């Protein structure tokens, strides 16, 4: 699907939630722990043992940003979880923080 900026998505396999910060111009599948992410009001599907939670090493941290370089899709971690994010099965990369002095 084409993601709306500001839209919120929850993981089907863990407690992670993300917000879309920058959208991709094309149809993509956003997944967490290998399973398609769902809208906050959608019921969480039963996860059976046969579902592979891929890339369980990175997870989602609150306040971290994750980017898919190929499509430009960028999300912000709103709730933490164990599952790792992917776009069309490509693992999303952690966006490096830049140091900016406080100005407010």
């Amino acid at each position: 699907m084409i993601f709306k900026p500001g839209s919120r998505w929850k993981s089907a396999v863990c407690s992670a939630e993300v917000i879309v910060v920058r959208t991709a111009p094309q149809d993509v599948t956003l997944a967490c722990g290998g399973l398609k992410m769902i809208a906050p009001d959608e019921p969480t599907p039963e996860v059976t043992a046969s579902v592979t939670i891929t890339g369980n090493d990175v997870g989602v941290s609150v306040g971290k940003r994750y980017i898919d370089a190929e499509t430009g899709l960028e999300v912000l971690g709103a709730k933490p979880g164990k599952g790792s994010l992917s776009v069309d099965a490509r693992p999303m990369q952690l966006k490096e923080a830049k140091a900016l002095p406080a100005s407010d």
Partner: protein
Amino acid sequence: MKVSLLLEMAATSAPERVALGSLKQSLSYAGLEMRAKAGAAWLASQPAEKTVFIGLNGWAFPALIFASARAGKPITPLNYRLPDADLNRLLALSAPATAVIDDDMITRITPPPNVSILSRSKFEALCLDASLQASEIPERENEIALLLFTSGTTGEPKTAVLKHHNLTSYVLSTVEFMNADETDASLVSVPPYHIAGVSAVLTGIYSGRRIFYLSAFSPEDWVETVEREKISHAMVVPTMLNRILDVIAERKTSLPQLKALSYGGGKMPLPVIERALKCLPHVAFVNAYGLTETSSTVSVLGPDDHRLAIASDDARIRERLNSVGRPIPGLELKIADENGNPLMAGKWGEICVRGEQVAGEYLQKKVISADGWFPTNDAGWLDDDGYLYLDGRLDDVIVRGGENISPGEIEDVLRQHTLVKDVAVIGLPDAQWGEKIGAVIVPNTANVSEEDLAVWVKTRLRSTKTPEFWEFRDELPYNETGKLLRRLLKEELSN
């Protein structure tokens, strides 16, 4: 993404961490989130689609910002320092609204139709109501987060429209989530009705830095508070800094716990920032330039820039203490001619910005171009390395006999004269030239003459840039955020 999510994230990650208050009496992120939740539930039950806040800083203000965001109702903090008639006029313009007003300010208000009033003490009480805190409200979309009346130094106040997207984009591009040390604390002395008062809440919460409010500014109180409250970060306007430095010198203190001091909102005189850098060698200075319409900061002159400039023998590098630095990440900035075309480095023109934090929209009209550029009405130029120098408002430019003359350049020259304490240069009507140059001087001593000052300018600039009208005063009119009110001077002296 709504601004309320910023607090939600902080409360999820660090519920027990101190969000605001003093070392002795503080409120945690979870505590603030619960209050905002209760406030939102109550606001959702009110018919009006907007929220107004008239009051001093304190936890009720951030609670109301986040409560309004959750309830999908834009918030408008109003300037309580305005005369009663003006304050009531702005309140009427904000109707229909639910207004939360400081208890001792309510008597100043004549409630307009469609405005329901709740005292601050009642609002604070309902934020603590357990059943309101527990109630869930349906998600309600509203793109607009904040409606702010701009200070209007050049005319009638306008209502700037700031969307959730603008404000959260600004926070995400300038602040790393929870990157502050647990012991860090920001001293906020800007009022709630200023964009910096709102952005201080949003960036403070997101960075995890405790917010401490200074209710009214005095340099003595400021210094005492920094020491007592172990303040690590503070933001000041230029007029505050020199007075603070006087107190620091008097008390022979060095404010060892202060890590960073940012300033903005008006032109910082070079001698003041040079003095500050010498007096507080351990402090990271940041000059920030921003506007209401851009969700606050668009460019910063960082700590390294300051230290490099003050230590340099190269006039070009040293000059950077007069600059507002370079654009922040994710923001484009250009200097444009009157047709919006970009100008080369060194050329004077209008500062235009583009980016997700840029709203560039008023309730009255949208001023952003089709390709997203917002003309700021601020004039300036960029140097070869991309450092931005401000040079007044476009409206302030004096047009004398067809020549465009920038008041800033003449003011800078006059300010270097030892007998000049402060100065404002303005255009005044003139039958022969269209406009003539007027200088209003605040002298250091009584024995300063027009002739001396005229020669001073003439030998440093040229005769067409030498003021033809002189007036001496005890002080110049500034608004409370340190902006010179040229329009007022112009009106007074035009007759």
